[in-house]
């Protein structure tokens, strides 16, 4: 029988090249929703497997399952301390060290997520307060707020009190049909709470800025979320309107550089090689068929297995 340590470790290590593979793959563009689900499962599965590997290393192999074994070790250590026995032996100390590392990783991942959520909520509250002071409605874009600024910007502020914001620059740049496509795209983001989908990946990207893989994973999921919203908009409006809107907003410089700081931000962004806009335009102009049913089942099955297997290994007595 395979030891749970081996299976968990294989999963934790194997998911790293798998993530690189998925980030480079082309098929996710055909079915963004399925691919996003797989990304989420891989992220969650990796977390559980990595925490579980350390816990399994520390767990007493004769204990019932990894979780039970870990508790047995802790219980033993606590009893030894209570009895004021001499410091534990080398093996017991090593076990406690592994369990400590496992708990630390769990705490780190939780903390990273909470910190990112906190920062996001703070930023959104400030942004909404500013919008309530500065923005106004406009009959050309029903349900959206307009900020008087010449730079082209269209975005949404997700949350319980969500907002769609269009700058005056974007309002001038886009015609009525293109504006409708932009609104449909942003409404899809808000309705399906794409921000919550992206949040764990943002948290990891913030926590590990030096990890190329984490950054690429984040970029992949962010692009897939945009494609998902594109698909929603393209179902309601002609895809061409969305495409021209994308190109206009994407390639709009800041007219007359209204503020030195804004011009700087533009330069910085110009260095970003792949904005993802090209990929979005390509798939809107030449739509490819979605994944076949067997492929869909395969992706869903893999996603389910990635979450269930490591979690089961932790709690099931072997």
């Amino acid at each position, binding site marked *: 029988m395979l030891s749970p340590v081996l299976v968990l470790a294989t999963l934790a290590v194997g998911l790293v090249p798998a993530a690189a593979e998925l980030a480079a793959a082309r098929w996710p563009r055909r079915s963004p929703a399925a691919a996003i689900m797989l990304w989420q499962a891989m992220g969650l599965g990796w977390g559980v497997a990595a925490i579980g590997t350390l816990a399994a290393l520390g767990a007493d192999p004769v204990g019932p399952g990894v979780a039970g074994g870990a508790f047995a070790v802790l219980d033993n250590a606590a009893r030894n301390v209570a009895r004021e026995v001499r410091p534990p032996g080398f093996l017991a100390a090593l076990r406690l060290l592994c369990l400590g590392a496992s708990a630390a990783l769990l705490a780190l991942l939780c903390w990273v997520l909470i910190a990112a959520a906190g920062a996001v909520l703070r*930023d959104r509250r400030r942004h909404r307060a500013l919008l309530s002071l500065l923005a106004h409605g406009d009959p050309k874009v029903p349900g959206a707020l307009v*900020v008087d600024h010449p730079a082209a910007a269209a975005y949404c502020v997700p949350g319980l009190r969500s907002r769609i914001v269009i700058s005056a620059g974007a309002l001038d740049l886009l015609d009525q049909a293109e504006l409708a496509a932009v609104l449909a795209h942003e409404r899809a983001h808000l309705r399906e709470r794409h921000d919550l989908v992206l949040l764990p990946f943002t948290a990891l990207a913030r926590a590990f800025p030096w990890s190329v893989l984490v950054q690429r994973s*984040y970029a992949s999921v*962010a692009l897939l979320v945009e494609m998902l919203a594109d698909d929603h908009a393209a179902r309601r409006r002609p895809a061409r309107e969305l495409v021209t809107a994308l190109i206009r907003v994407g*390639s709009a410089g800041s007219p007359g550089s209204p503020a030195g700081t804004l011009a700087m931000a533009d330069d910085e962004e110009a260095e970003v090689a792949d904005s993802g806009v090209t990929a979005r335009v390509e798939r809107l102009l030449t739509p490819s068929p979605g994944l076949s049913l067997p492929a869909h089942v395969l992706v869903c099955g893999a996603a389910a297995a990635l979450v269930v297997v490591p979690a089961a290994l932790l709690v099931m007595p072997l």
Partner: protein
Amino acid sequence: MDVLWESETQLTVRQVGSRLTDRDLAHTTVMTVLDRLAKKGFARRERDGRAWLYRAAASREAYVTELMLFALDQTGDRSAALASFARRVSGSEARVLRRALETGGDSAGS
């Protein structure tokens, strides 16, 4: 807030109320709104005898710039607070895109 932005000097609650001529607001309403603005840091206030004197903490333009900087600075890892419609593309990418649009338009027959 617009009243505070347009005024060059500090204003009392009563002065703000009298300048909001288009709306008939109760004195206490204006007071509450100004109090809230001050607590959020958008207005500064000083005691003058028994009354508060209010002024805007920063100009309207400064706030618009802050808002837009934040909105345009969504290059990725910094914040997930907003979701931008499209990122800035480089000049060469924009040229490729325009060409794609032309050929795509031909094949679609529009």
